[in-house]
C-alpha cells in the first residue's frame, strides 16, 4: 500500500525560480502534494529570527541551521503545521512568521514553533541552490 511508481515519479525534485519574489514576499509551491513556502525575508525578519535565545524555544534550532549560508534571506519550509497537518497562513501571528488557523500554533520568521500545541518547527525540505536565483527542491 506504499506509494506506487507514478506517485514516486511525480514526487521528483522541482526547480523554482526565485527572481520574481520581492523582499518581504513569499510564494507557495506544491511539491509531493505538500505546500512549500518560500519566503524572501526582510532584514528585520532575519534579525528577529537570530535575536532569539535558542535555548528558550520548544524545539531549539538556530536560524542559521534552517537556511543556507550565503542565502540567509531565503526561508524554505514545508507549510504543514506539525500539530495535525493544517496549512499555516504566512505573515500572520505575533512572530512575523506563520499562524495556523486550526489550533492556534504560531511560528516565527524562521518557521520555528513559538506558541501553541504544535511540538516541532516547520520542517525544512531538502533543497539546494542551483544558482543564486534558482533552487531545486527535493
Amino acid at each position, binding site marked *: *500500500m506504499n506509494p506506487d511508481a507514478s*506517485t514516486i515519479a511525480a*514526487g521528483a525534485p522541482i526547480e523554482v525560480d526565485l527572481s520574481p519574489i520581492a523582499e518581504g514576499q513569499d510564494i507557495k509551491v506544491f511539491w509531493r*502534494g505538500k505546500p512549500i513556502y518560500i519566503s524572501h525575508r526582510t532584514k528585520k525578519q532575519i534579525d528577529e529570527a537570530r535575536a532569539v535565545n535558542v535555548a528558550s524555544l520548544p524545539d531549539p534550532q538556530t536560524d542559521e541551521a534552517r537556511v543556507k549560508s550565503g542565502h540567509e534571506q531565503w526561508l524554505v519550509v514545508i507549510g504543514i503545521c506539525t*500539530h495535525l*497537518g493544517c496549512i499555516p497562513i504566512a505573515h500572520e501571528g505575533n512572530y512575523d512568521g506563520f499562524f*495556523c488557523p*486550526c*489550533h492556534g500554533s504560531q511560528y516565527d520568521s524562521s518557521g520555528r514553533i513559538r506558541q501553541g500545541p504544535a511540538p516541532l518547527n516547520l520542517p525544512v525540505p531538502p533543497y539546494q541552490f542551483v544558482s543564486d536565483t534558482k533552487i531545486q527542491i527535493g
Partner: protein
Amino acid sequence: MSGPSDYQPSNPALQWIERRLPIFGLMHSSFVAYPTPRNLNYWWTFGAILSFMLGMQILTGVILAMHYTPNADLAFKSVELIVRDVNYGWLLRNMHAVGASMFFVAVYVHMFRGLYYGSYKEPREVLWILGVIIYLLMMATGFMGYVLPWGQMSFWGATVITNLFSAVPYVGESIVTLLWGGYSVGNPTLNRFFSLHYLLPFVIAGVVVLHVWALHVAGQNNPDGVEPKTEKDTVPFTPHATIKDMFGVTCFMLLYAWFIFYMPNYLGDADNYIPANPGVTPPHIVPEWYYLPFYAILRSIPNKLAGVIAMFGAIIILCFLPWLDSARTRSSKYRPLAKQFFWIFVVVCILLGYLGAQPPEGIYVVAGRVLTVCYFAYFLIVLPLLARIEKPRPVPNSISDAVLAKTGSRSTPMVSTAIVLALAGSLFVGSIDSAKASEGSDTPPGNKWSFSGPFGKYDRGALQRGLKVYKEVCASCHGLSYIAFRNLAEAGGPGYSVAQAAAFASDYKIKDGPNDAGDMFERPGRPADYFPSPFPNEQAARAANGGAAPPDLSLITKARSYKRGFPWFIFDFFTQYQEQGPDYVAAVLQGFEDKVPEGVTIPEGSYYNRYFPGHAIKMPKPLSDGQVTYDDGSPTTVAQYAKDVTTFLMWTAEPHMEARKSLGFQVFVFLIIFAGLMYFTKKKVWADSH
C-alpha cells in the same frame, strides 16, 4: 444458536434441506423459540434497531457505490450528480449520510444501556468485547465514508486523523505514508478509503453474527440483572420480542425520517459542500458529532503522542470494563451509588462532545482537561472502588418476582431527573458559549422564506426573477456549473416548459468539439448543456478578480452558514430551521456599506460588508436599485433582488427539495399509523405476560 434444535419443518422439501443443512432449525431456535427474559424494557430494542441500521447502510451504500466515482477530481461532482440526476438519488444519499449518524445514536444508547445494567459482567465478557470491536470498526467505517464526498471537511478531516498516526515514535511518518499511498492525502488515499469503506461493513456484519451468537449462548441480560431460572421468567422470542422490536424500530424510523426528509444537512458541516482544496484549511476543523468526545480528549492533552494515546485509550478501556467493575450485582437498578455515577458519566460524555466542537482556547481547554480526567476516573477509580464499598440493595429472587413487584411501585423517575439534570448542565455551559458567539461579523437577520418548514415550496415567480438576476448580474463572474438548462423545466423548479428551457439554452454559446478537422467550435446551447462558466479555470478567475476567485454558486446556499450557537441548535431541530445559508447569502448581498465603521480597516481592492466574516470582501457591491427590470411588477429594489436570487440559488443547491418534503409527509403519515398498529399488536401479544 443455542444448542441442537428439535424443530422439524412440516413441508417435505424443507425437511429434505433440514436433514442436510439444519438452517431452519438454527433460525427457529435463535429467533422464534429462543427464550427471552420477560422483563426487558424498550432499551433492549436497540439491538434490533442497530441490525436494521446496518442493513439499511449496506443496502443504500451498495446502490450509491454504483453511481459514485472514487477519484479526487470527480468524487465531489459524482456525489452531486447522484443527488441531482440519479432516480431518488437524493433520498439514497440522505438515507446513507443520516443513517451513519442514526447508527451511532443507536449504538451509544445500546452501549450506555449495557453500562447501566451491567451487561458486560460474567458470563457476557466476550459478548461485550465483541461489541467494542464492532464499535471500533464502525468508527473506522464512518470516518472513511465521510472522506468519500471529498469536500473540504472530508479532506481536512482525513488529513488531521491520518496525522494522528505520525505521533507514533520512529515509524510514525512511514505509517502515515502507507495510509496515504503518497506524500499527502490525495487520490490514492481516496481510492483505498473507498475500498475499505465498502469492505468494513461486511466485516461488521460478520462480527455482529459472532455478537449475536455470544448473546444466544450467554442469554440476554435484563433490567434486574438476575438470570432466568424457570419457564415463568421467559417468553418466546417470537412473537413477543419480535413485535416489540418492530415497534421500537418503527419509532426509531420516525426520528430517522425526520432527518432524512426535513433536516438532511443538520448533522453535517456546510464546509463539506465546498470541494476539497489542499491549499486552504477551513478555519475550524470539526469531526462528525459522534467522534467529538474523543476529539475533545485528544485536544485536551498538550503532548501530541500522549493525546493520541489518551484518545485511543478512551475506547480500548471499554474492553477491560468487565474486570474493572467487579461488583457482583449487575443492574444499577439495585446499586444506588453506581446509578448516580452512571448518570454523571453520561453528562461528562455529552459535555466532552460539546467541547470537541468548540475552538480549543481559554475556558474550553481547562474544561476539556477536567472532563477528560472525569472520563478516565469513572473507569479506573469510581467503578473499582464502588465494587468494594457500595452496599447494593437486595436483588429479586427471580425475574417473575421482579415483574410482580413492579406492578406496585414505580421507580423510574430517577432516570428522568438525571436526564433533566444533564440538559440543565449543558444549558449552563451553552450560556457561556452564546456570550462569546458574536465574534468577527454580525449575525445575518432571519428572513421569511417560502421554502422553509415541512410544507415549504419554492416561489415560482421568485425563481424566475432570481434566474434573471443571476443571468444579468452574477453570471459575469460566478459559475453555476451543476445546473443544466434542462433543469429549468423540471418539476419543483422555476416552472418553465421544455420549449422555454430549450429557447433559453439556445441563447448561450457552448464550446464543443473537436470536429473532424480537430478544431473546437462553438454552437448554440442545448437543454442537456450546463451553464457555461465565465472563466476557463480557477487561475483565470483569480487573476481577473484581484486574487479572490468568485465561488461557483450552484451550492453556495448549502456551503455557507454561520454559527447558530447554543441553545439555538437545539431549537432548530424542532423548528426545522435550516436556512442559515440563504439568510447569510441574502445578508451579504445587502450588507455593503460605504461608510466603514471605526476600528475596521479595509485593504486596498476590498469592500466593507457587515455580514462577511472579517468584513473585507473582494466582490464590489453587485446590486443596486432598478438594475434589473422585472416584467411582473415586483419592486426593483436591492432587497427584492437579493431575496429572489437567493431563492433561485437555494433551488440550484437543492433542486429536489419539494419532492423531498412531500415524500417526507407521506412517509410520516405511514410511519405514525404503522407505529400505532405495532403498539396495539404488541400490547395484545404481551397482554398475559406482564
